[in-house]
């Protein structure tokens, strides 16, 4: 008998069907992958299992009994635990306090701490219960969430995109832990769009597209490409890279240092870097190692000493963002909503946001709305942004479409140097391919591009050279072609305090 069985589950929101007649079973001790693009309905489905969403129709049975949790508490009581993609932890409290906060009847602090120690040792997830969460790396924070779940002794553990914040070594440790849990009889529902991971970890995969189950497969027997095409429903276009000689140095960083901009920020330490025209430089690293700060220092949000950042031969470290744009440096920050774009403003207004200087969208300070609108329409056309029109608000676009708009807005300003942080974060596979191709095309036209990403496969696909950002320091650059994923993992660091799960009782 299956542990959990889902039959004909349907959930609709006004205007969209999130899940339609979804059925699948998870066996005891099985690691089951739920695969699908953004918007395929994975989140709604697991929220239904975790009691956050009530399905419109369909049934669920857990261990043969009807299972319809009205709230997460009921789901937890029935033995379902979930680790979310976004952590719900308080930075200012320590690990044991954070874990006790999630319990129904927390025992005394020292008892919680002792149980955290024993569980973390048992599953090879080292964690000091007295550490303040704000000081932990993303991987360690995830361990807090996992241990919080393990303390409930769950029958089913749901993990939503767990590896997006981990280094390859941390991923290995996590997988060891999950395999050990599965061998002890815990079922795991593993949500991801990273196919290689699913192939190495999971026993079975259910693929969702547009809310419906479009296939089941054994990921070990199926190629990543086949799974991707099942997921997307079409043949994928793979970006192409052409070899060409590099030009002069376009961007130089000399001992770029800056203090942490806020309490939980990262200090930049003496970063040295040269990027040439036509080159794509990839910077990898786990989130929170100084990516945001580096982008801020490069785009001008966080000015530094003038000679720390050089565009061509000109010192620009002390210039404001628009002065840098005028000289040819554009940037696309990671956060689309509220940083790269304003959700409540129209795409025309969002065009003015960064393009006012280079596209001359203002005359004597007065905005030229006609010009801005036609440039916005040009971006929408060229980058295939799916939207009713330029007057739509940025917030009404899907993540992938807004990202295409943001990247398109910067590329179409024809910059000499482009800085992009997380170009395809939370973007569906076809939009991601289009964005990567656009980045490659821009470099072919002679621009220097710096791509900062946590997605190593992406960096390997586009970058000519690669360096890792670790605690505000940049490693020595390496040729991307000669690197293996393992070597990159070592460059990313943060693997020093890890151990593999103690297999056995």
């Amino acid at each position, binding site marked *: 008998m299956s542990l959990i069985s889902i039959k004909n589950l349907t959930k609709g929101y006004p205007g969209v069907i999130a899940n339609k007649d979804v059925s699948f079973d998870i066996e005891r001790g099985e690691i089951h992958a739920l695969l699908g693009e953004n918007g395929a309905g994975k989140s709604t489905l697991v929220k239904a299992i975790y009691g956050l969403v*009530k399905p419109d129709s369909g049934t669920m049975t857990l261990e043969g009994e009807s299972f319809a949790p009205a709230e997460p508490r009921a789901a937890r009581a029935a033995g379902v635990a979930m680790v979310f993609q976004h952590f719900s932890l308080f930075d200012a409290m320590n690990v044991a306090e954070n874990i006790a906060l999630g319990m129904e009847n927390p025992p005394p602090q020292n008892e919680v701490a002792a149980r955290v120690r024993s569980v973390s040792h048992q599953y090879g997830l080292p964690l000091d219960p007295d550490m303040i969460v704000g000081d932990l790396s993303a991987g360690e924070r995830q361990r807090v969430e996992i241990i919080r779940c393990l303390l409930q002794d769950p029958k089913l553990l749901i993990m939503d995109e767990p590896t997006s914040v981990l280094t390859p070594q941390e991923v290995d440790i996590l997988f060891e832990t999950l395999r050990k849990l599965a061998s002890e009889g815990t079922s795991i529902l593993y949500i991801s769009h990273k196919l290689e991971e699913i192939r190495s970890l999971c026993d079975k995969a259910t693929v969702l597209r547009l809310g419906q189950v479009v296939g089941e497969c054994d990921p070990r027997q199926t190629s990543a490409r086949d799974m991707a095409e099942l997921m997307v429903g079409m043949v994928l276009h793979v970006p192409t890279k052409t070899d060409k000689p590099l030009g002069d140095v376009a961007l130089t960083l000399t001992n770029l240092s800056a203090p942490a901009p806020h309490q939980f920020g990262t200090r930049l330490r003496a970063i040295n870097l040269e990027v040439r025209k036509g080159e794509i430089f990839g910077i990898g690293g786990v989130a929170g190692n100084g990516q945001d700060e580096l982008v801020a220092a490069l785009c001008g949000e966080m000015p530094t000493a003038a000679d720390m950042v050089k565009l061509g031969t000109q010192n620009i470290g002390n210039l*404001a963002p*628009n002065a840098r744009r005028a000289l040819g440096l554009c940037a696309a920050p990671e956060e689309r909503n*509220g940083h*790269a774009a304003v959700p409540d*403003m129209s795409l025309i207004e969002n065009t*003015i946001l960064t393009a006012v200087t280079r596209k001359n969208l203002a005359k004597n300070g007065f905005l030229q709305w006609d010009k801005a609108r036609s440039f916005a329409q040009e971006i929408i056309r060229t980058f295939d942004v799916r939207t009713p029109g330029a007057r739509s608000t940025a*917030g009404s676009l899907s993540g992938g479409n807004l990202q295409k708009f943001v990247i398109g807005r910067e590329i179409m300003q024809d910059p000499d140097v482009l800085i992009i942080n997380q170009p395809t974060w939370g973007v569906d596979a076809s939009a991601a391919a289009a964005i990567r191709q656009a980045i490659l095309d821009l470099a072919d036209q002679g621009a220097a591009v710096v791509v900062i990403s946590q997605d190593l496969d992406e960096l390997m696909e586009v970058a000519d050279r690669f360096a890792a950002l670790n605690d505000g320091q940049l490693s020595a650059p390496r040729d991307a072609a000669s690197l293996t994923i393992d070597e990159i993992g070592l460059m990313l660091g943060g693997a020093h305090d890890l151990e593999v799960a103690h297999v056995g009782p």
Partner: protein
Amino acid sequence: MILLEKRPEPSRAWAVATPLLAVLLTMIVGGILFAALGKNPFETIRTIFLDPLFSEFAWYYRPQLLIKGAPLVLIAIGLSFGYRAGIWNIGAEGQYIIGAICGAAVGLALYPMESRFIFPLMVLAGAAGGTLWAMIPGILRVKFGTNEILVSLMLVYVAEQILASMALGAMRNPEGMGFPGSRNLSQYPSAANLELVAGSGMHWGVVAAFIAVIFGYITLSRHIFGFHVRLSGQGPRAAVFAGVNPKRMILICLGISGALAGMAGLFEVSGPAGQISIDFNVGYGFTAIIVAFLGRLHPVGILLAGGLMALTYIGGEIAQSNLGLPGAAIQLLQGMLLFFLLAVDVLTNYRIRLSQRGTV
């Protein structure tokens, strides 16, 4: 069960309709309140909202509408810049007082000299006084991260003490038999802000309010500075990315609202009020906050809202004298207007859906 469902985009129709709905709700609940006070609700509502315009004494009240409305609109336009940028100046009343004192000081210092430059100089002094007073919360916020809401509000009470001290001391009329209060500026031709057309209520403050509406409209919809103001409010991080210096934005927005409030104070002290007195300020600076929000922080909306608030002021006075309504009831009515506006505001961004089952 009633569900609120987020709209994909804010509704333009509701953005226009919510202020009207708020006025309607205020009339209904206000009517209930007046009935509870033992007054005829229909007569009271009519007295407050219609009598100033259409009664037999309307010839007297209509000019009052301009006189009361002008400072409200002038101050609210200034406040709307800050509010759009997420900078909460609650102390326009204090800036209004200090503007009046500084402007009046120039006039009184030059008395009894006659020159056509005196009044413009007073206007500048009023604007400068209001700006300086607004710079106190501004600089404290920029340098030390203090909360401009609290500081600007508390400075209102400081300004009131300075006003009292001026009326009783430094600015007291030497020929005033020891009564508190300055010389009457409206009787000093070079410093007087007199009616431009007799009997119309139109004075320089009204002209300035209309100019401010036009200036505000063009700046917010056409100029890059107005764009940056809106950006700072709707996406502070995006504003920095677009090259806005947030500290400079705070100072500029507080400066604009201080300058306009100071000018409003000067136009009042040299015209309708006539003199610096202990009870010179009557709350225009606070009511302007309601005006700014009632007008959706939009210059044209503020113009209409200023007119409406002036109406409730005048109608309220009529209701007080004719129907014996307590003054507090009128203030309650004005407060209710803001309350309902904020409450029905939710309809702009959400739609209401009724569901049969209790599903969430």
